[in-house]
């Protein structure tokens, strides 16, 4: 057991901190729309051009080939520097589409897509959930018929984040019409500019349109775009989900500590109705301190996980537990800030930059539902970590 960083780790941190200090975008990220997507692409392009893209991706696929621990250091430095939030329109491409292609794609898939992902040229979205297949993903019904060297896709997907900006999609469909549940599924790379695709935004409680319905009307996708085997899509999808649940929230995990410290600073300034500073209220002070302890532990848990997977080469089974802890801590922090801010917490124009704490409060439901609801994460923990009898 040790906490020592290697010389290479320390040198990497110093170099990252130094570069970030002079290169964080001066302009604010636009609140939404294609201007926001362009902002994200530009930032990723800049990271790529200066050698900061794909920290832990293998060198042969254009990454830096560094360790998981160095990736943690990178996210810590991003949070410290106040860099653009890593859950943006480049997120799906970088955090799970790319890693899925590295693990399961053909050499042609990798050669074509990975450089475009790292440079910010290609944005991706995830076509898994459907109107009648959310938590119960294996109930999905969007179908694909094999027609020569193409698969013809018809059906609909739902809750697809950033589909309107994405160039490609991780598309999970049913290619065997006789199949049940996890069998007969196929994982495809779908070009979002294909004829027959229609994207309709769904307005959310955050007053934005970041999620969408996507409709497919006889969309022709080359068979060469299958990742894994036809009919074995569930296995590829599990790989995608393991990346999403494993490291997908690493930025938030490490940033939460900084955000608690900012909330404590805020509580030292804001006055309550009775004239005292918020931090002088025992209830608020205790909640903030307890959240600080939780975020310190989240960091320890992250480092423990990363060090373990650097050693074994395998992501641990703890991603679901991490997501439960991070999302509940995130919401509890937003709630205490709401109590500190009082009336001003009720001002909201939908712009993350203008009302950051209220935005985060509303976002906390996205966080605890997207990528597998907290209830599903508890089920996974009960099954795979505790070995309890199956509920289903």
């Amino acid at each position, binding site marked *: 057991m*040790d906490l020592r960083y290697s010389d290479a780790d320390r040198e990497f941190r110093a170099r990252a901190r130094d570069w970030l200090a002079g290169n964080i975008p001066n302009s604010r990220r636009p609140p939404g729309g294609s201007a926001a997507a362009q902002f994200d692409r530009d930032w990723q392009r800049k990271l790529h051009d200066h050698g900061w893209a794909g920290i832990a991706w293998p060198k042969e696929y254009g990454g830096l080939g560094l360790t998981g621990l160095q990736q943690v250091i990178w996210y810590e430095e991003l949070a410290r520097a106040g860099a653009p939030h890593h859950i943006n329109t480049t997120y799906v491409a970088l955090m799970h589409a790319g890693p899925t292609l590295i693990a399961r794609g053909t050499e042609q898939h990798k050669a074509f897509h990975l450089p475009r992902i790292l440079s910010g040229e290609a944005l991706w979205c995830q076509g898994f959930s459907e109107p009648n297949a959310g938590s119960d993903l294996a109930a999905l019904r969007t179908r694909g018929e094999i027609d020569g060297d193409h698969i013809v896709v018809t059906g609909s997907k739902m809750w697809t984040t950033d589909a309107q900006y994405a160039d490609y999609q991780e598309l999970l469909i049913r290619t065997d019409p006789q199949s049940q549940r996890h069998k007969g599924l196929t994982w495809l790379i779908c070009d979002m500019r294909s004829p027959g695709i229609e994207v309709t935004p769904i307005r959310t409680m955050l007053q934005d349109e970041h999620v969408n319905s996507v409709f497919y009307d006889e969309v022709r996708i080359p068979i060469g775009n299958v990742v894994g085997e036809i009919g074995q899509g569930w296995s590829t999808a599990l790989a995608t989900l393991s990346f999403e649940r494993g490291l997908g929230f690493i930025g938030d995990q490490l940033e939460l500590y900084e955000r608690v410290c900012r909330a404590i600073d805020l509580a030292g300034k804001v006055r309550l109705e009775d004239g005292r500073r918020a931090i002088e209220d025992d209830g608020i*002070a205790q909640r903030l301190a307890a959240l*600080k302890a939780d975020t310190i532990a*989240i960091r320890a848990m992250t*480092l423990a996980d990363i060090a373990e997977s650097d050693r074994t080469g395998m992501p641990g089974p703890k991603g679901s537990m991490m997501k439960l802890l991070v999302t509940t801590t995130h919401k509890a922090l937003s709630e205490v800030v709401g109590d500190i801010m009082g009336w001003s917490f009720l001002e909201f124009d939908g712009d993350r930059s203008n009302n950051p704490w209220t935005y985060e409060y509303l976002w906390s439901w996205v966080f605890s539902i997207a990528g597998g609801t907290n*209830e599903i994460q508890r089920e996974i923990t009960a099954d795979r970590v505790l070995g309890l009898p199956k509920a289903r």
Partner: protein
Amino acid sequence: MYLAPEGDEIEIADAAADFLAQKMPIDRLHKPGAADMSETLRELLGEMGWFGLAVPAERGGSGLSPVEHALFFREVGRQCGPVDLLAQALAANAAQDTGLRQSIISGSRGVALMVADGDGYRLFGSDHADLALIVTRERAQLHPLEQAALESRAALDPANSLRVADALPDAVDGTSGETIWRLGELGAAAMLVGLAEAALDLIVEYAKVREAFGRPIGAYQAVRHTCADMAVRIEAARSQLWFAAAALKEGRGDAGAHLDAAKHLANEAGMACADSNIQLHGGIGVSEEHDAHLLLKHAMLLSRLFGSKRSLLARLLEARLED
């Protein structure tokens, strides 16, 4: 960077687990007169060198570190070990007199744990202990007990007896500084993590075999989700415990902050898991013959020792971390 037991650390933890399961199993607490560390147990533990794990070799100890200390006390916590066992190990680190220190490390003299309470004192430990250890963040002192006027009180926690005193004879040995407190805080946090793990193990095993409405209760989401929440608390508390132990070992500047976070999370995990374990067991969970109440009552004592919720949170609000 590695935040889990490895190599020799695993061997030490396994050896401690085996030894304690044989000599100090939790079910001892269902028999009368089982409170505190018996003379026999004390001498056995001393023979094996468990009290001197973190004592430097040149001072007669094993010359190991806070990491091994934490690994050992996690196993002690799993068996609901008495807090005078922790006092004995802390006294081995605190005593300056060579002869006294050797007698504590070997287990030939016994130490009880004493805490100040208002103008008086509370003592947790056996009649056979002739020294009381009082630890604050500023100093650790050993007081002789022969002349002390002690009055017995009924104790909630079957793992430790309770006596009170209005005054104490002068200290005969001790040391200044925060080192002993930190070993105490780490040890108590480790015991709470072990205790929480024991609670989760009990309910997971029970949920696999106890049936209701024709299915094992572990197949119902009301039970599964509560167990998952217990597991999350434990995972966080255990990760932070290892971080704090390694931070102490390496002398990091922010070790105190990590330790306070570890104790706070261990307090919360110990209490919450002991609570849920009783609730999910149903009726049998409140029976005296079951272990579930033992874990709860001991967690109530441990979560008040070496940093209670209020004092830890006040410190954490100001804490600053390094990279």
